[in-house]
């Protein structure tokens, strides 16, 4: 078995905020009827909760469920757990019309940490960060590529994007976080 590595192997840059590629991260995408009881039961079987529109909610074992669109959820867990989580949800919903896929190897995850972490992303995303609440998943763009952003802790934002554009996003974040580039 080959050794799994993340897109940028944990590359990190310290500017006025610290931007880090978060390493291997498990992600499972689920497209289903989110109002169906079966969906709720399938998530509960993996220790997950069903989020409301644009929410990201914590489940058991450090897992999260994020609302991505009216028929799509993203489950975030550890990399090693992802195949089992995907298989568990798929098994629970095998009689329903759903799509469950382990997309861990198709994504990259970044963290932006520091008191001025918001300012790194303010320059890249058309988002009102003052209105971005903890527990909200905001899908948007980072410069020219699709991204999703949420507040993963006090003074920390997380960003997920496609793995194929990870180096581009790291470049954006690194330049945006350089000392002297603060907005206030």
């Amino acid at each position: 078995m080959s050794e799994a590595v993340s897109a940028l192997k944990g590359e990190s840059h310290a500017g006025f905020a610290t931007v880090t590629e978060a390493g291997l991260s498990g992600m499972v995408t689920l497209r289903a009827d989110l109002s169906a009881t079966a969906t709720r039961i399938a998530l509960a079987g993996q220790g997950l909760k069903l989020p409301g529109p644009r929410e990201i909610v914590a489940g058991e074992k450090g897992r999260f469920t994020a609302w991505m669109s009216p028929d799509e959820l993203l489950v975030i867990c550890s990399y090693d757990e992802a195949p089992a989580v995907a298989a568990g949800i798929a098994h629970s919903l095998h009689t329903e019309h759903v799509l469950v896929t382990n997309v861990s190897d198709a994504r990259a995850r970044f963290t932006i940490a520091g008191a001025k972490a918001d300012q790194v992303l303010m320059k890249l995303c058309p988002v009102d960060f003052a209105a971005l609440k903890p527990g909200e998943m905001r899908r948007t763009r980072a410069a020219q590529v699709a991204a999703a952003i949420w507040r993963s802790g006090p003074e920390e934002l997380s960003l997920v994007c496609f793995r194929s554009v990870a180096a581009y996003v790291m470049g954006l974040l690194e330049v945006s976080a350089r000392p002297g580039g603060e907005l206030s």
Partner: protein
Amino acid sequence: MLTLTCPCCGVTVEETELAPGGEAHLKRFGPGASDADFETYMFARKNPKGVHFERWRHAYGCGKWFLAARCTVTWEVFGTYPAQTSEPPAELIAKIKEKRPGWEGWK
């Protein structure tokens, strides 16, 4: 800058997160239609100075299509609504008529 509220995910986004889809509420003329009808369906578009109904896709967000009514002169947005409808909602039409008394209607 045009900002629209996506009715599918409820977030207010600006134009660069959206993909334009042209005029809304077109009637399709497919196989079996007359050449004149098909040509009109393919090429003839309204180009109003005033109220216009448009299709937009929340491309960098939830990915869903929705419809919007706005003024092409002032860029005032009258409202957005889900795409699963064949005509604009009655309350939106009433709102536009109130703001634009001389408006000839959406058809």
